[in-house]
């Protein structure tokens, strides 16, 4: 093999090509001379020589192939040809790049969400072995685990290598310049062993080989160390004065470690409570090597079955629910991710349809050029390769823009959805996401570009002769393309419409309390002075004294229309429930949420009194305890009976376990756990009578001057105790937060469906406009034969609608069968919501009609004479 010649041919392309031309020209001249010697005149001799010569182009191709430089050489040449021919069709190039960029941008953005949330490994070593364990009973499929049950799991399980419990426990840290509220968690000693993440500085908790590890130790996050402790080097000498007493800081976790999500301080704890029904703990475990999650499920189900048989009604769990850590972290957003994926695939399909019809039109426009090249000897393979190069150039360009778009979209999504996207997920457009985007772009280009290319090059004979773009029966594919686009856009629009409608329905619903003009001051009292150290809950004298003073001060503040307090504000994210006995009974008959309020709370936040009375100043510490229930509790436990005057006793409630409360009033229901959550039965007690659960509470102020009142609220609390921690926010911000997830899905889906609709409109417009140009002659003939302009316009509109209406029908039918998959994500409407379907159909028709109008009126302006002379 003559390597030198090959290399030279490859790298010294100019010389090699010139040599080839020389050799060729020499041959041509020799042949011409020869023919002339044979007696032919010069002109004829040249012609003969050329005929002998064969196809110029094919000859060169083959000679080059023979030299083995074809591939690289062809690529650069194909690129040059593609760029040149695209320069001649800038409209087509721009539309293609734009369409690919939109399709690829949205798809890539959603892929990077899915990649970050569902595909990427969790940031813990060997995270697949991590499981979350819940108690399972007939009533609650997955509830927290009691301390005693946890100890049994830890002692007896053979399928779990290590287990640990943890529970979020926000604490107020004193002793720094300002009291600080931190997201803390109480965890068992082996917590970090389970996750296999160790502190980078200092140490973890001493587990003493079992549950009797150290106490009063805390590990802090890197962020807490840097931001709150200003990265002090003497951190190991510090005691954190928290709500659970003092803890020595023993270690600092690596940056970025955040489990449970958002926690900055981990305090070691044990639980000796023998109760099997105190569902206090989240439990995480690590499977033994080789054990599968099903093994653990079987083993623990068996364990709990045995416990149930032994303990009877002292234990409510009947088995366990086990989920992988990933599943437990992503459950909430998994469906949303699939819905987004479905939506974005529809957008991409609409984009593909547009590209396909643009390519089809372009192919027909190119036919003549291609036919000429075929006549000059270019093989079909060459032409196809060149067309493919053109498509790839467009798609790579579009893909690059698309990746840039995805990068922006991801930033927007992350900004929009901090409450929606799991905190562990790192959602970024990295190399792997970019590679995905480019693959999608190129696949899109080849799929949508090659079918038209094959079709066009399939039969080029006679095209050159007939002048190309003849009046043949083309465009047969255009109707179906329009119909497809319409169908896809319809499905997406209906999906988005359902989310929009359900969001509106949700906002229109009465939550049972006022949201506007309510300012909140969340107050957390330090444990020192306010928590009774012997029993662990609020001091019955200090706590009411503090809040009474705050209330008195605020009542006198100008701008405050009303003020009240509640220990757990609706939408605040926490709630405590308790079982209770009724009318002297000794068994728990019912359960309800337990809230502590003052008498003005109901009026301030707008919860209506339905029956009986609210608290009065007579309901003080010395008086007989009274309780107000909500309508849900009344309907559920006193069906058809007047609940007023009946007595209840919640035996778990603190220092008043044996005290009976008389029901004095019934108030309206509230949506406490979320605007889209069902109401639960509730009981309200008075803070002067039962202040134990008031060490943290919200001061609720109704005001029309929030900016003036907020500082007064902080000042009032600080005045009562300067160590009190105060955080000001509003009911509106809680409400926004409560619907943030739905707002996110709705916004993204609406954006996608708007995009699909826009693309479909562009597609319809493009196809019709091109069709009008193609049919100019036919239209000219019609007009010459007496068709009116209105008639021509009607003709084009009619053609469009013949494709749009079936597309719409197919889209509606498809939506009819697919919307059920999002039923669980909807609120207050059925997946087959007639208004949504009707409005969508109307929108589609209007948009399609709008997109057809311009091409139609252009057709009507065709000048019959010019049109007929055009060819």
């Amino acid at each position, binding site marked *: *093999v*003559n390597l030198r*010649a*090959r290399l030279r041919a490859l790298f010294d392309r100019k010389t090699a090509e010139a*040599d080839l031309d*020389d*050799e*060729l020209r*020499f*041959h041509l*001249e*020799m*042949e011409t001379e*020869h023919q002339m010697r044979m007696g032919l005149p010069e002109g004829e001799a040249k012609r003969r020589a050329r005929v*002998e*010569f*064969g*196809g110029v182009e*094919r*000859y060169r191709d*083959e*000679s080059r*192939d*023979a*030299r*083995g430089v074809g591939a690289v050489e062809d690529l650069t040449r194909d690129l040059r040809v593609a760029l040149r021919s695209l320069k001649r069709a800038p409209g087509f190039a721009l539309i293609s790049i734009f369409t690919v960029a939109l399709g690829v941008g949205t798809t890539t953005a959603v892929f990077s969400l899915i990649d970050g949330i569902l595909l990427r490994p969790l940031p813990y070593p060997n995270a697949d072995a991590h499981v979350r364990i819940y108690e399972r009973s007939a009533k609650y499929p997955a509830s927290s685990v009691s301390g005693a049950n946890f100890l049994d799991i830890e002692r007896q399980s053979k399928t779990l290598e290590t287990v640990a419990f943890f529970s979020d426990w926000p604490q107020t840290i004193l002793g720094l310049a300002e009291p600080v509220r931190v997201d803390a968690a109480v965890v068992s000693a082996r917590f970090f062993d389970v996750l296999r993440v160790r502190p980078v500085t200092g140490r973890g908790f001493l587990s003493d080989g079992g549950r009797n590890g150290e106490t009063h130790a805390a590990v802090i996050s890197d962020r807490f160390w840097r931001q709150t402790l200003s990265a002090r080097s003497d951190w190991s000498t510090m005691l954190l004065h928290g709500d659970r007493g003092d803890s020595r800081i023993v270690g600092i976790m690596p940056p970025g470690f955040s489990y449970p999500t958002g926690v900055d301080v981990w305090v070691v704890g044990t639980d000796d409570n023998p109760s099997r029904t105190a569902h206090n703990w989240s439990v995480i475990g690590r499977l033994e090597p080789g054990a599968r999650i099903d093994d653990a499920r079987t083993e623990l189900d068996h364990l709990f079955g045995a416990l149930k048989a032994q303990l009877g009604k002292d234990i409510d769990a009947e088995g366990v629910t086990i989920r992988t850590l990933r599943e437990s972290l992503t459950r909430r957003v998994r469906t949303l991710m699939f819905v987004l994926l479905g939506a974005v695939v529809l957008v991409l399909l609409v984009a593909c349809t547009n590209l396909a019809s643009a390519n089809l039109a372009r192919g027909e426009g190119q036919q003549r050029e291609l036919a000429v090249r075929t006549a000059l000897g270019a093989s079909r393979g060459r032409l196809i390769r060149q067309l493919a190069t053109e498509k790839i150039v467009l798609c790579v360009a579009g893909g690059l823009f698309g990746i840039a778009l995805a990068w922006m979209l991801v930033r927007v999504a992350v900004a929009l959805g901090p409450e929606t996207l799991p905190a562990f997920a790192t959602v970024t457009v990295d190399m792997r996401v970019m590679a995905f985007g480019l693959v999608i772009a190129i696949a899109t280009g080849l799929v949508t570009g090659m079918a038209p290319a094959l079709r066009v090059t399939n039969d080029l004979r006679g095209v050159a002769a007939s002048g190309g773009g003849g009046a043949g029966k083309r465009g047969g594919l255009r109707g179906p393309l329009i119909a497809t686009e319409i169908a896809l856009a319809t499905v997406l629009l209906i999906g988005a419409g359902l989310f929009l409608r359900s969001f509106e329905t949700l906002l229109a619903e009465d939550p049972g309390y006022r949201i506007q003009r309510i300012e909140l001051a969340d107050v957390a009292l330090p444990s020192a002075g306010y928590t009774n150290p012997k029993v662990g809950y609020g001091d019955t004298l200090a706590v009411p004294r503090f809040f009474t003073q705050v209330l008195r001060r605020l009542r006198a503040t100008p701008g405050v229309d009303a003020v009240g307090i509640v220990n757990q504000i609706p939408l605040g994210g926490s709630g405590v429930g308790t079982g209770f006995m009724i009318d002297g009974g000794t068994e728990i008959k019912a359960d309800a949420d337990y809230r502590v309020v003052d008498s003005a709370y109901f009026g301030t936040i707008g919860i209506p009194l339905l029956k009986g009375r609210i608290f009065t100043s007579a309901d003080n510490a010395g008086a007989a305890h009274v309780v107000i229930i909500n309508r849900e509790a009344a309907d559920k436990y006193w069906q058809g009976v007047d609940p007023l005057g009946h007595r209840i006793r919640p035996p778990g409630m603190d220092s008043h376990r044996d005290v009976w409360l008389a029901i004095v009033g019934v108030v309206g229901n509230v949506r406490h756990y979320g605007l889209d959550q069902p109401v639960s039965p509730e009981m309200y007690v008075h803070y002067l009578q039962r202040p134990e659960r008031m060490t943290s509470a919200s001061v609720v102020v109704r005001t029309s001057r929030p900016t003036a009142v907020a500082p007064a609220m902080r000042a009032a609390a600080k005045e009562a105790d300067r160590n009190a921690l105060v955080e000001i926010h509003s009911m509106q911000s809680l409400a926004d937060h409560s619907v943030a997830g739905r707002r996110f899905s709705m916004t993204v889906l609406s954006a996608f469906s708007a995009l699909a609709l826009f693309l479909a409109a562009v597609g319809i417009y493009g196809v019709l406009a091109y069709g009008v140009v193609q049919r100019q002659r036919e239209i000219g003939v019609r007009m010459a034969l007496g068709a009116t302009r209105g008639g021509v316009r009607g003709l084009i509109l009619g053609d469009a609608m013949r494709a749009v209406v079936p597309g719409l029908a197919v889209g509606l039918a498809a939506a009819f069968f697919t919307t059920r998959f999002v039923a669980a994500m909807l609120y207050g409407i059925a997946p087959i919501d007639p208004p949504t379907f009707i409005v969508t159909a109307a929108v589609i028709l209007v948009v399609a009609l709008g997109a057809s109008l311009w091409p139609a009126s252009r057709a009507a302006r065709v000048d019959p004479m010019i049109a007929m002379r055009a060819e």
Partner: protein
Amino acid sequence: MLERVQGSLDMMILKTLMNGTMHGWGIAHHIRTRSKDALHVRQGALYPAVHRLEDAGLVRGEWGVSDNNRRARFYTISAAGKRHLTVETADWKSFVRVVGLVMELA
């Protein structure tokens, strides 16, 4: 069969070059006259074949000056080319003989 045709063109080029150094047109012309105008080797077939033979080291190409004083590329058969021709010729002859037998029998 295609291979045969391709091979026979290679063989004819090599055989022609046994007469001495020649440029491309000379090879084509030689084949044309020898075949009494029956075989017209088109350039589209000739030059790829010649270049292939050159790359395979069976012929050597060199730029030179033609009889009428023009720059032309001349081809000479190499030792490997001669050996190849001997083998090919023998193959060809036996092929022709076998086909002849079959055709006569048939």
